[in-house]
């Protein structure tokens, strides 16, 4: 057990995780997921929000088993390696807001950092502007960390607390399988409370069991290796520690090779799947997301893995992401392949202001 732990905490842990994601994400696309969207934590949170009826964008509604697998896989790893540790109390309300604004930024770009790297590896050059924005946002967050920014300390919580997020994921899995249709529309057809897209990205998905198992494996590997698509850049700049960066580089290189082998590599700016070509807002959206993720301590995937190992504050961030994804589609903040939406740019600006105020004002309270 210790030798496995040592292996995963070495440089090889993130690399193995990155290689696995790099192979499997393009394969998930072949098996049915939307283009360059083998894994996208934000897009999948948005689909879940839609499936639960939190927004009515009928093309992006589905309960993504990958997300369920991420949390439960991390839970299993944490239990086996005795790292399941319920804790909470580190500014949960601020984390909720950061989750919301991170999603607003990511949905203006159309992808979380995971998908930004996967879009790049699929030849979608619009992702370059998103990744530059992500690096800038992380850089701003690092500035606040150096100035003493902190969301304060978590405290050990009751055992039951750590089981809440895994339980929610099990309920989502049941809702995915049962898909209850209790509601009736005006003409008497069954509708809701669970909504699944009949067309569009929400209708494109790999078989449930395959997606769930892949999610479980990724959750397990990432819990052990601490894989984080934001920490990769943050630690390289702030701590001169490139351990996590190797994982992300492995992901990009292997995903590129896999896409190439599967005939899914289509280089260019125009007509990329679930993407638009507005470089300015691709950049700015991801700058907001990068800043919000950095202030919250990790990428959206990492927040799911942490919530699986009992971190109640990460679970609040995840809740903020799902609610934020609902709001993003109700209030036309999220972009579409035809371009940036009406309230996307102003929301990014408001989000940057809010995150900067958070960065400047949150300090650890002295006892």
């Amino acid at each position, binding site marked *: 057990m210790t030798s496995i732990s040592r292996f995963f905490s070495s440089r090889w842990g993130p690399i193995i995780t990155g290689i696995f994601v790099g192979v499997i994400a393009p394969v998930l696309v072949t098996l049915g997921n939307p283009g360059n969207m083998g894994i996208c934590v934000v897009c999948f949170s948005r689909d879940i929000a839609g499936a639960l009826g939190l927004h009515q964008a009928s093309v992006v509604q589905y309960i993504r088993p990958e997300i369920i697998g991420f949390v439960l896989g991390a839970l299993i790893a944490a239990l086996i*390696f005795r790292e399941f540790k319920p804790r909470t*109390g580190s500014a949960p309300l601020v984390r909720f807001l950061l989750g919301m604004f991170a999603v607003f930024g990511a949905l203006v770009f159309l992808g979380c950092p995971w998908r930004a790297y996967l879009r790049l590896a699929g030849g979608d050059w619009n992702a370059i502007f998103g990744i530059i924005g992500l690096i800038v946002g992380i850089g701003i967050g690092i500035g606040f*960390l150096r100035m003493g920014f902190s969301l304060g300390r978590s405290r*050990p919580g009751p055992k039951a607390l750590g089981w809440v997020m895994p339980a929610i994921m099990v309920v989502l899995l049941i809702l995915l399988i049962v898909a209850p249709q209790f509601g009736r529309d005006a003409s008497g057809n069954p509708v809701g409370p669970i909504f699944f897209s009949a067309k569009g990205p929400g209708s494109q998905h790999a078989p449930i069991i395959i997606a769930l198992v892949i999610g479980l494996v990724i959750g397990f590997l990432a819990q052990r290796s*601490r894989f984080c698509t934001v920490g990769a850049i*943050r630690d390289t700049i*702030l*701590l001169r520690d490139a351990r996590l960066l190797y994982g992300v580089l492995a992901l990009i290189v292997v995903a590129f090779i896999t896409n190439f082998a599967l005939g899914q590599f289509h280089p260019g700016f125009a007509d990329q799947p679930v993407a638009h070509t507005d470089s300015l807002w691709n950049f700015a959206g991801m700058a907001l997301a990068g800043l919000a993720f950095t202030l919250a301590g990790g990428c959206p995937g990492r927040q799911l893995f942490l919530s699986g190992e009992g971190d109640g504050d990460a679970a609040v961030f995840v809740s903020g992401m799902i609610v934020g994804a609902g709001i993003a589609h109700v209030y036309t903040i999220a972009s579409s392949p035809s371009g940036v939406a009406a309230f996307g740019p102003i929301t990014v600006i408001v989000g940057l202001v809010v995150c900067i105020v958070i960065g400047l004002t949150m300090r650890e309270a002295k006892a």
Partner: protein
Amino acid sequence: MSDITTVDARGLSCPQPPMLALQAMKKLGKGEMEVLVDTVAARENVSRAAKGAGWDVTVEEQPGGYYRIALKK
């Protein structure tokens, strides 16, 4: 605990434990110090950062579910 430098990083999110530990190591230059953390991820991150900066690292598990990382240079 004695009068050596202590960085209490328990309950703090990434990347604060290794960041605060590195700041304290830089300030101290050499000698002995300790860092307290309460997750295995933070324990690994602080240990790796300290080893990278040339410090000897000894980890002790403490009652109450946290770790004391003793650093020496």
